[in-house]
């Protein structure tokens, strides 16, 4: 029986790692890479089959990125594409029996959220310089408190939203199976809903990351 919330850990170089999360992450990465490589192995001018799907996804995410970030955000397209593809595969992986989503671990979601936020501030300072730092103190210097709270809230909300959705989904799958053996219909319905949730959460995480990045990268109209 799956023990909810208990994680198998390994020690390596004095550090503790959640073994299941790491393995599931590597499986997700492998699936994403496999799909990407298989779909783009033999690129054709006139696309067919799998190329259509992967190409469509990449074109769609690229357009989203360019719309949000402007032409200067071109170099962030691979990041956004990877973020979405990884998250959707990771979210759906937990729906496969015996598998678990890497995103049901706060370490994964907070890791990604912090990665994005660190990137936002680094890029902000790098691309806008003092102007970026100054905007935390506007319209009055006292606003820096609210702004800092907001900046701290960003990765936390980003991380917990995804973590909570996916963990809750997986817990409910287990609970529904434990409740009654005959409850196939609710289980199936919940699986379908989890599929939807996985896609939506991946999209929300990607969109919010884009919005935060836009703050730092996009030229302001001033």
């Amino acid at each position, binding site marked *: 029986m799956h023990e909810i919330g208990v994680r198998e850990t390994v020690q390596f170089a004095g550090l503790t790692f959640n073994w299941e999360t790491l393995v599931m992450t590597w499986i997700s990465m492998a699936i994403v890479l496999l799909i990407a*490589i298989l779909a783009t192995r033999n690129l054709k001018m006139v696309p067919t089959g799998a190329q259509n799907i992967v190409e469509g996804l990449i074109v769609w995410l690229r357009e989203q990125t360019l719309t949000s970030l402007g032409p200067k955000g071109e170099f962030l397209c691979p990041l956004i594409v990877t973020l979405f593809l990884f998250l959707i595969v990771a979210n759906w992986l937990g729906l496969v029996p015996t598998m678990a989503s890497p995103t049901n671990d706060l370490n994964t979601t907070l890791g*990604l959220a912090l990665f994005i936020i660190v990137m936002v501030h680094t890029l902000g300072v790098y691309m806008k310089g003092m102007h970026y730092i100054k905007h935390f103190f506007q319209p009055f210097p006292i606003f820096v408190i609210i702004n800092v709270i907001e900046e701290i809230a960003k990765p936390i909300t980003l991380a917990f939203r995804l973590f909570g959705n996916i963990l809750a989904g997986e817990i409910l799958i287990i609970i529904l199976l434990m409740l009654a053996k005959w409850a196939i219909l609710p289980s199936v319905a919940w699986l379908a809903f989890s599929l939807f949730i996985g896609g939506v959460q991946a999209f929300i995480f990607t969109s919010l990351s884009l919005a935060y990045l836009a703050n730092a990268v996009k030229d302001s109209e001033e």
Partner: protein
Amino acid sequence: MIDINATLIAQMLNFLVLVVLLRIFAYKPIVKMLKEREERIAGSIKKADDDAAAAEATLKQYQEQLAGARVKAQEIIDKAEKRTREDHEASMQTTKAEIDQMKHAAQLEIQRERALAVEKLKGQVAALSIAAAEKIVSKNIDAAENEALIKEFIDQLDKDKIGDLPC
């Protein structure tokens, strides 16, 4: 359940690795291919437009040439017709003139011949008169005999058809 440990750092690194790998294996080739496709489509559209324009220009040129040729052909036909008519008229004139001349010549000839014949006839009539007179004189002057003589003379005249005068 929400214990945070070194997995967080590992996940960041994992994600970074995935970004790099996806960029190399999927993003770059697809974007490159998209650019190529875009260029190709733009090129095709431009070429199609150019071809259409060229075709239209050629068609216009041909139509102009055709119109020019038609006008020229008409001109040539007109000219030929005119020349034929002129030639015909000229030859008619010549023929008429020739016919007139021939007629004139024929008339002259006829008059000349006639005059000649009258001249000849005159001479022969004189000779006949003399011959008749000789005959009358040599015979006895008898009224009945004279008459018979003259009759015989005239009969001979009819019979022998002295001379070949056409009149």
